[in-house]
Structures are given as C-alpha cells and as structure tokens.
C-alpha cells in the first residue's frame, strides 16, 4: 500500500490545481461579461418601457451598482452552496433553468458518444482483424472527415440534403441527426489513434505468443489486443468531451434542441450574466474534472505513464 500514498498526494495536488483553474475561470468570465458596455437593464430598457429611474432602481435591486470584487465574492460564496442566482431576464433560479436544459444536452451527449465509440472502435478493430487497404483507407477518411469538415458544416449539409432537398426528416428537435453529426466527429477523432495503437500492440510479444498458440484473428484482437489499447480511449477522453461540448453548442442551435448550448447562446445574446457565468463555469469545470479523472485513471492502470 505504501506505493499508493504518493500517488494520492499527486492526485490531491492535481485536484487543487484544477480547483484553482475553476476559480480563475469564474473570475475571468465574471469580469469579461461585465466590462461590456450595456447590461441586462439596458437590454430590458430597449425591449420594454423601463424609464431611467426604474433602471436605476432595478440596478440597485440586482446589486449591479456594487464594486465588482464584492459582487464576485458574493457570487462565489453562493455558487459553492449550489446557488448560482437568478436569471436576470426570466427571474428564475439559474440552477433550475440549467437542470431543464441539461436533459436535452445529456441525451445528445450520450447518443453522440455511443455512436462515436461504436463506430470508432468497431472500425479500428475491424481494420486490425482484417488488414485490408480499403479498411485503413476508411479509417483515414473518417479521420480526415472529422478534422477537415467542422460539425457546423456537416450539420448544415445534413439539413440541406435530408430536410430541405429530400424532405425526409424535420430539422427542429431532430436528436438522432444531431447526435450523428457529433458522433461521426468523435469517431473520426478516436479511430486513428486507436488504430495506430492496435497496430503497435499487434507486434507485442504476448500477441505473437497467442498467435503462435493458434488463437484466431478476431479473438486475438478482441481479447488480447483491444484491452491493452483501451488506455488510448481514456487518454483521449478529455479531447472527446471537449469536442462533445464544443460541438453540442453549435449543433444544438443548428437543430433547435433546447439544451445547454442553446441556453448559453440565449444568455449571451441577452446579457444575462448569472446564466452565462453559471453555464461557462459548469462546462469548464466538467471538462477539467474529466481531464483530471482520466489522467489519474491512466496513471493508475498504466504505471509507465508519466507522474501527474
């Protein structure tokens, strides 16, 4: 057990570092969204019939006239207890709005991830079991596809082709189509590194020994090679999640899904500080946490990895 203690300490340092990041990001976003001329009161003033006195009163009510540092400390203290304040436009608790939007985003994320993993892993494994030129060509094509054609363009192309031209499906709220767009992007990102790693593992001595024992190719790859290469997927998980979240913002808006991405854009357009702040901080925190976890997990299952 003695060997695991320094590991735990490393993990603690890593978590501390990431906690610092989250605080720094909160502070940055806090300042960034407030240095803009024009706040939510102006926005409401333009929209409705709020006169100057009413605007001043509202600013005072919302605490927008207090020093920034105090506003931030106040926000931080509440955020730690899970209270991200109320939306300035809808007067609704931010947490409730995010919880409602999270459903759609989680559905989209889960479906995209499933598509991405299944397609990516299946293709990489198939290309390893049956080393054919066209299969590796497919691997490269998928990889180039995900790098060269952004999800925004893929989504637009899908809408143009199937919704407008062929009229096969509606655009708005089309979860499967949205998930397909992100899923193929994820598949393209993981298929190439995974295939390379599988190829490398195929040359390892335990695989050669298994092959010499007469293990058939499919069983060889699935039982002896693939488990060995799963660490690649863990190492890529941060990248995958970032792609998932980044892609989700665009694709949700494109397909009109009421998720976190749509919520974030709406909040940004309406200068709804508490909402912008909460969405950005929660997304950044989730990415940081997944990154930390994947690093720790990687270190745990593969001691050859560099220390945290």
């Amino acid at each position, binding site marked *: 057990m003695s060997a695991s203690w320094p590991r735990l300490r490393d993990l603690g340092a890593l978590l501390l570092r990431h906690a610092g990041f989250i605080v720094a*990001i909160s502070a940055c976003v806090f300042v960034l*969204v407030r240095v*803009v001329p024009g706040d939510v009161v102006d926005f409401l003033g333009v929209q409705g019939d709020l006169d100057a006195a009413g605007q001043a009163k509202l600013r005072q009510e919302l605490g927008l006239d207090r020093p920034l540092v105090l506003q931030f400390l106040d926000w931080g203290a509440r955020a730690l207890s899970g209270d991200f304040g109320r939306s300035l436009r809808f007067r609704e608790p931010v947490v409730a709005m995010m919880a409602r939007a999270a459903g759609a985003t989680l559905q989209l994320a889960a479906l995209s991830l499933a598509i991405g993993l299944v397609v990516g892993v299946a293709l990489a494994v198939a290309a390893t079991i049956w*080393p054919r030129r066209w299969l590796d060509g497919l691997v490269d094509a998928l990889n180039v596809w995900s790098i060269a054609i952004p999800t925004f363009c893929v989504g637009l192309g899908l809408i143009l082709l199937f919704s*407008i031209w062929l009229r096969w499906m509606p655009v708005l709220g089309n979860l499967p189509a949205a998930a397909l767009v992100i899923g193929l992007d994820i598949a393209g990102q993981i298929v190439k590194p995974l295939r390379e790693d599988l190829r490398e593992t195929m040359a390892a001595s335990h695989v050669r020994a298994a092959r010499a024992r007469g293990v058939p190719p499919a069983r060889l790859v699935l039982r002896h090679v693939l488990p060995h290469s799963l660490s690649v997927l863990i190492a890529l998980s941060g990248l995958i999640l970032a792609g998932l979240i980044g892609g989700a913002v665009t694709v949700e808006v494109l397909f009109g899904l009421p998720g976190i991405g749509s919520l974030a854009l709406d909040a940004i357009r309406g200068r709804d500080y508490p909402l912008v702040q909460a969405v950005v901080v929660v997304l950044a925190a989730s990415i940081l946490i997944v990154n930390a976890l994947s690093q720790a997990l990687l270190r745990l299952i593969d001691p050859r990895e560099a220390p945290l």
Partner: protein
Amino acid sequence: MTEAAPRTAPPPRREPTLVTAVGGWPSAFGLAIVALAVFCAIFAPLLAQADPQAQNLLARNRPPGAAAWLGTDHLGRDVFSRLVHGARVSLAVGFAGLLVALVLGAGLAGLAVAAGRWPRRAFTAFVDLLRALPGVLLALVLVVALGSGTVPVILATGISFLPMFAVVTASTYEREARAGYVRSALVLGAGRLRILFVHVLPNVLGALVTLSAIILPRVITLESVLSFFGLGVSPDTPSWGRMIADASRFAERAPHALAAPTLALVLTTLAMALLGDGLRRRFDPLRRSLAR
C-alpha cells in the same frame, strides 16, 4: 497497408511537378479550390453581377438562372454577388484571426519561455485556462466581452486558437534550448531575446507554418459559426456565416441561398485541410498524418 510491410527499395526519383511539390493529388485539389476562393475574394467587385447589398423586393427567393446565377435571397439580393464578396470577408477574417493566434500564441510563448521559470509557469497556466473552455464557448464569451463587429471577431477567434500555437512553440523552444547551437550562442554572450528570434525562431517556423495551415480553416469556420449565432461581423457585411444565418430562416422557399454559402464553406475548409495535410507531409515527413 499490411501489418509488417517488408522494406522495399525507395522508388526511383521522379521529376518534381506541381502536384508532387504540394504533396500529392488531394492537396493539389485543395490548392486549386483555395486558389479559386482567393481569386474570388480579390476580384469580387469585378466578378459580382450586382451590388451584394442591393435589395429587390420584387425578385425575392428567385431560383438560379441567367439573371442571377445563383438566384436571389429573401430580400432579393443576388446570391452569387454576396458569395464572392463573402469570400472576401470570410478569408480576410480567417487570415487576420490566424495572424492574431500565430503572433500572440507563438510570440508570447517564446517570450515566456525565454524569460525564465516563473513567467513560463504563469504562461502555461494561462494557456491551460484558455484550453479548459471548448473552442466555440471561449470565442462566444470573448465576443460578448469585446462586442460584435469585424475587429472583435478577429480578436476572439485569434485568442481561441492561441493555445495551439503556444503549446507547439513552447515545446519546440524547450527542445531547441538544449541543443548545442543555442548553448554555444549563450556562451558567446548572446542575449536571450537574440537567441529567441535569431537562432531558434527559424527552427520553429516549419512547425508553425504547418500548424497555420491546419488552423486557418478552423478560424474561418469559427467566424461563420459566430456570424450564424448573430454575434459575428456586422449585419451589413456579407460573410458566409451571415449568409447562412439569413438563409436558414427561409430555407424552405430559397434552398439555393442556403446551399451556396454552405457549399463554399465546406469546400474551402476541406480544401485547406487537404492542402495543409499535404504540405505537412511534404515538409514534415516524420509526422505522417493530420495531427490535432
């Protein structure tokens, strides 16, 4: 590709052609498309049949024809004219954003690494901070802080892609700093900045150029996404993203107005990626395929 390809003799050296010079057929195709886009951008006023902003409410949503090669949009504006003028905006913003990312990312990274341990650590933390926000979200927050318009969009897209340049520059610089020529320059009394710009920069240039080729299409796409969100260049500037945003609301009646800028964007980003990959393979044969 087989699992253990036998080493064969290198193929006989062939005369270099334009195709081999850019790294093969896919990137030659890329080069052609990129050249076409740049041509359209430069000669937009000559190519355009009509004023890209001129509205003609009597000829709305017209399909492609002789009068308007790519039809008209929901305000009766000529789609082809807007497309070539849009190429101007999209490419210009793309290049400018790339330049911001390159200069800020590579420059700051070089300075930070040269300045010593603590500046380097601070800079690494700053880059990690930027990387914790996925691309679109970071750009969105920045656009909100900087306001919309052409210059803020350039800055926002540039800062979003700054981390990649910073990471590549910092790692190359650290590797080079241990090399003999840098140490001998130090012994000869060269200053850190002189070593950075005169001795090391030429060696980082290749990596930066190939990275630029990969980042450029992403900058262009990001600009389009921001414009699509209504947070990009001002509404009276015809960029591809702005055209997509406008046309997507009327896609039922004027699908051509949506198809034209979408195809232009897809083709351009694909072509740039292919060209970038070809150049990378040509000049950096160790890293064989597209890297992230």
